[in-house]
C-alpha cells in the first residue's frame, strides 16, 4: 500500500490498484472515459434516430406500397431485428466510417462532412485567435486592477458577450460594416470571382491559397472571414477574459510575486512574465474548451454569413428532414467536442505536475 501511494501522491479515480506510472495511468483513465462517452454519444444519436415520427420504411416505399414490400424493405434495413442488435450494427457502421447517405446531396454523409468541416474549423480557429489575443490581455488588466474601473468595464463587456444573441450580432455586423460602411465584403467565404481558383488541399482556404501563392485569393478570403470570426470571437472573448482574471488574481496573491517586487523587478515584468507565465497552464484548458464551444456557436453564425461549414450543412439537412445527415453531423460535432475536452484535460494534467 505504501509502495503504491509513493507513486500516487494524490489518488485519482480508477486503476488505483494497478501500480502504473502516473502519466500512463492518466492516459488509460482518459481512454476508458473517452470510449464510454463515445458509446453514450452513439446511443443518444441512435435513440434520436428511433424517435423520429417519420417511418423510414414508408419514406422509401411510400404509404401505398403493399404489405409484403414494406416487410421486405424493413428486413433489408434491418429494422425487424431487436433494438440492441440494430444498435450494435449502427456502432459497427459508424466505426467503419459509414454514416449512411444523405438524401439531400445523395453523397455518403461522411464525404459531405469532410468537405464542409474545414470551413467551420477555419472560422472557429480565427475566432479563437481573436478571443485569445484580446481576451487574455483584458483578463490580465482586470486582474491587476481588480475592483477598479478597468475591471468593472471588462466585467460589463464580458456580461454583454454572454447576453447577446450571436446570430443577431452577426446581422447587425453585416448591416453596419457591409451594407452601410462597406468595410467588409458580404456573406460567403469568397467573392464569386475567386471561386474555384484554388484547389482544395486542406480545405482551409487561408492555408490553401497561401500555399498555392494565390495572394489575391488569400486576401479576399481574409477579408471575408474578419467579420464572422470577430463576431463569433466575442463569445470566447467573454469566457477567456473572465477566466484569465480569476487565474491572475490567484497568482498575484502568491508570495513569489511579492518576492519579485521586493527584488525591485519592474512591475510590467512581474505581471506579464512571472504571473502570466504561470497562468498559461490552466488557461490552455480554458482556451481548448472555448474552442469546442465555438464549433457549436458557429452553427448560427454560419447561417447568418452563408458560411458553407458544418453548421450550415446541419441546419440545411434539418430543414429538409434529412435524418442521416443530421445525426451524422451531430455525432461528428459531439465527437470533436468530447475529443477536445479530453485533450484539454490531458494537457492540463501533463503540463501541471500538481494535478497528477
Amino acid at each position, binding site marked *: 500500500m505504501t509502495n503504491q501511494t509513493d507513486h500516487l501522491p494524490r489518488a485519482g479515480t480508477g486503476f488505483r490498484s494497478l501500480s502504473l506510472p502516473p502519466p500512463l495511468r492518466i492516459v488509460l483513465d482518459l481512454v476508458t472515459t473517452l470510449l*464510454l462517452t463515445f458509446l453514450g454519444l452513439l446511443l443518444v*444519436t441512435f435513440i*434520436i434516430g428511433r424517435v423520429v415520427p417519420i417511418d423510414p420504411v414508408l419514406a422509401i416505399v411510400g404509404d401505398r406500397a403493399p404489405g409484403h414490400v414494406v416487410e421486405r424493405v424493413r428486413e433489408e434495413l434491418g429494422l425487424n431485428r431487436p433494438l440492441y442488435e440494430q444498435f450494435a450494427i449502427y456502432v459497427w457502421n459508424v466505426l467503419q466510417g459509414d454514416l449512411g447517405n444523405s438524401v439531400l446531396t445523395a453523397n455518403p454523409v461522411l464525404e459531405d462532412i469532410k468537405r464542409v468541416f474545414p470551413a467551420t474549423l477555419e472560422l472557429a480557429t480565427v475566432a479563437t485567435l481573436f478571443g485569445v489575443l484580446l481576451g487574455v490581455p483584458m483578463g490580465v488588466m482586470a486582474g491587476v486592477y481588480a475592483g477598479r474601473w478597468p475591471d468593472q468595464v471588462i466585467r460589463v463587456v464580458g456580461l454583454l458577450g454572454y447576453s*447577446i444573441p450571436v446570430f*443577431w450580432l452577426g*446581422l447587425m455586423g453585416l448591416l453596419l460594416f457591409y451594407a452601410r460602411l462597406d468595410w467588409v465584403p458580404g456573406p460567403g467565404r469568397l467573392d464569386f470571382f475567386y471561386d474555384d481558383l484554388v484547389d482544395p488541399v486542406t480545405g482551409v482556404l487561408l492555408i490553401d491559397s497561401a500555399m498555392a501563392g494565390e495572394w489575391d485569393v488569400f486576401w479576399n478570403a481574409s477579408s471575408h472571414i474578419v467579420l464572422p470570426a470577430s463576431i463569433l470571437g466575442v463569445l470566447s472573448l467573454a469566457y477567456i477574459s473572465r477566466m484569465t482574471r480569476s487565474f491572475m488574481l490567484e497568482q498575484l496573491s502568491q508570495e513569489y510575486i511579492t518576492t519579485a517586487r521586493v527584488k525591485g523587478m519592474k512591475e510590467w515584468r512581474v505581471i506579464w512574465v512571472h504571473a502570466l507565465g504561470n497562468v498559461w497552464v490552466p488557461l490552455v484548458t480554458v482556451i481548448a474548451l472555448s474552442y469546442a464551444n465555438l464549433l*457549436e456557436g458557429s452553427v448560427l453564425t454560419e447561417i447568418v454569413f452563408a458560411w458553407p461549414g458544418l453548421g450550415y450543412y446541419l441546419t440545411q439537412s434539418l430543414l429538409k428532414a434529412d435524418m442521416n445527415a*443530421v*445525426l451524422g453531423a*451531430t455525432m461528428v460535432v459531439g465527437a470533436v467536442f468530447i475529443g477536445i475536452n479530453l485533450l484539454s484535460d490531458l494537457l492540463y494534467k501533463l503540463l501541471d505536475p500538481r494535478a497528477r
Partner: protein
Amino acid sequence: MSSQAHDLQGGAGWRAWLLSASPVSRRQARLGRSYIAWLSFQSNHLAMLGLGIVLALILVAILAPLIAPYHPNAQILTDRLQYFSWAHPFGTDELGRDIFSRIIYGSRLTLYIVILVAIIAAPLGLLVGTSAGYLGGWVDKVLMRITDIFLAFPKLVLALALVSALGPGIENAIIAIAITSWPPYARIARAETLTIRNSDFISAVRLQGAGRMRIIWSHIMPLCTSSLIVRVTLDMAGIILIAAGLGFLGLGAQPPLPEWGAMISAGRRVLLDQWWVATVPGIAIFVVSLGFNLLGDGLRDVLDPKSGGQG
C-alpha cells in the same frame, strides 16, 4: 439607511428584530438571514438592475393586453414595413403588424419557455443528483456516467437534433432544451448531497427509522435548492438564447406566434432596407438575457460568496 428606518413607523423595531444576534425562534433566524442577504444584494447596483429587468419582464408579460396598443397578429397590409412613428413606436413588419405589440406579447413566450424549462430540468437534475449522491455505489456510477454523456454534448447541437426528431414547435423546443439543461444541476446536487449525507442530523433521521427516499426527499433536497436556484438563474440567459436560436432557425415557436427569435428571422429578409424589423427583437432578447445574467451574478455573490468574482 438610518433615515429609511426612521421614516417608517416602527421600522427601527423591525430592523432590530430582523438583525438580532440572538433570535428567539426559527422563523426569526430565517427571516433575519434573508434580510441580511437582501441588504448585501441591494448594495450591488448591477444585480439590482438585473432584478429590475426581470421584474419588468414579468410585469409586461402579465399586463400585455393592457400595454400593447394592437393585437400581436393584427395585420394592416397597407401599413407594411413602416418606420418608427407615434402610431407604431417600433414600426411595423412585413405583414403590417405592430412590432411594439409583438415584442410585448413575445415576453409571454420567453417567460413561458424559461419557466417550463426550469420546471422540467431543475427537478430532474435534483432527483438524479441527490439519488446518485445519497445512494452511492453503482447507482451513483451509472447516473453520473449518463450525466457526463449529456454534458459532453454541445447543447445547441443536441437540441437541434432533438427538435428535428420531435418536429418543430414551441413545446418540442422546450422539451429539447430541458433535456440538454439538466446535467449541470445533477452535478451540483450530487456535490451538495455528498457534503450533507454523513452529517449527524441525517444519521439521527435514519436512526428514527426514515427510509432512503424520505431522507432524500425531505431532508437532502431542500438543502440543495439554494445553490440550484443560483445556477438556474444563471442558466436562464443561456436558455433564452438557445430558444431564440431555435426560433431563428424556424424550429422553435411557429408563426404567427410573436417569438423574438422568429421575428429576427423574418426581419432578416428586409434587413438592408428596413433594419428595425430585425433589430428591435434582438435588443429585447439582449436586454432580457442581460437581466438574468446580472441577477444570477448578484445572487451568486450573496448566496455563495466562495465562487463569485466580486468586482
